[in-house]
């Protein structure tokens, strides 16, 4: 993913009340971080957050310039994006999950597949990959995944597809 790319960080799910507030769900580790990110809609329209309240999803947000029910209803269903470049550098040895998407899987120096996405069902991150034309789910874990070269966008695959 390039720095100019946009990252999905939330979705406006419904209007809330008559004063232009909206219900939002956020795809962030900490909801309060939304205040640090510049927000845009998919069509490029910039949004400025005035307030965010609530203890759990959906949060109640108020955006600048959205102060009546008609304006908030127009935002229903819109995804919220932020530029990739606005995200802080990840902690040591950690990777942004969306950065892994599209990386090439390499085994013994040969490209063998591509990472299509990821899942987290509560038992660790799983990479959804296409390997030699077949879809495979690979645990994002030492012993299965080796070195990750972010600039070259490659992921070293250590697992030899062995099942018991």
């Amino acid at each position, binding site marked *: 993913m390039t720095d100019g790319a946009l990252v999905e960080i939330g979705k406006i799910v419904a209007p809330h009340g008559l004063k232009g507030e909206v219900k939002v769900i956020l*795809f962030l580790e900490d909801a309060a971080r939304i205040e640090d990110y510049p927000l845009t809609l998919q069509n490029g329209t910039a949004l400025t957050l005035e307030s965010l309240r609530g203890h759990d999803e959906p949060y109640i947000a108020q955006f600048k310039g959205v102060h009546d029910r008609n304006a908030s209803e127009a935002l229903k269903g819109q995804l919220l994006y932020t530029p990739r470049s606005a995200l802080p550098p990840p902690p040591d040895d950690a990777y942004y999950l969306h950065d892994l998407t599209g990386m090439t899987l390499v085994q013994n120096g040969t490209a063998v597949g591509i990472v299509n996405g990821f899942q987290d069902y509560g038992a660790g991150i799983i990479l959804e990959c296409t390997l030699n034309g077949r879809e495979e789910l690979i645990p994002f874990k030492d012993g299965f995944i080796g070195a990750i070269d972010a600039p070259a966008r490659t992921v070293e695959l250590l697992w030899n597809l062995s099942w018991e």
Partner: protein
Amino acid sequence: MPRAVWKGPFVDAYLLKKADKVRGSGRNDIIKTWSRRSTIIPPFVGLTFGVYNGKKFVPVSVNENMIGHKFGEFAPTRTFTGHGGDKTAKK
């Protein structure tokens, strides 16, 4: 009514054999299982199971916090596509 304590946790016998075999081999094989009903017990910690969800074998890396849960809890049978947002992951 919960399961009687005197019976102990239920685990399919073949799964115990497979787990012993992989642990003995020292390789990082994924243990295929259709036994979503089996309870995760301490000897499974550190192993990775491929739990069938009706379509694929979902990798489940077992850790201590999962003991007492069933394998099926970690391999949903219905499609859900998550969002990355600003979430990070470590290996």
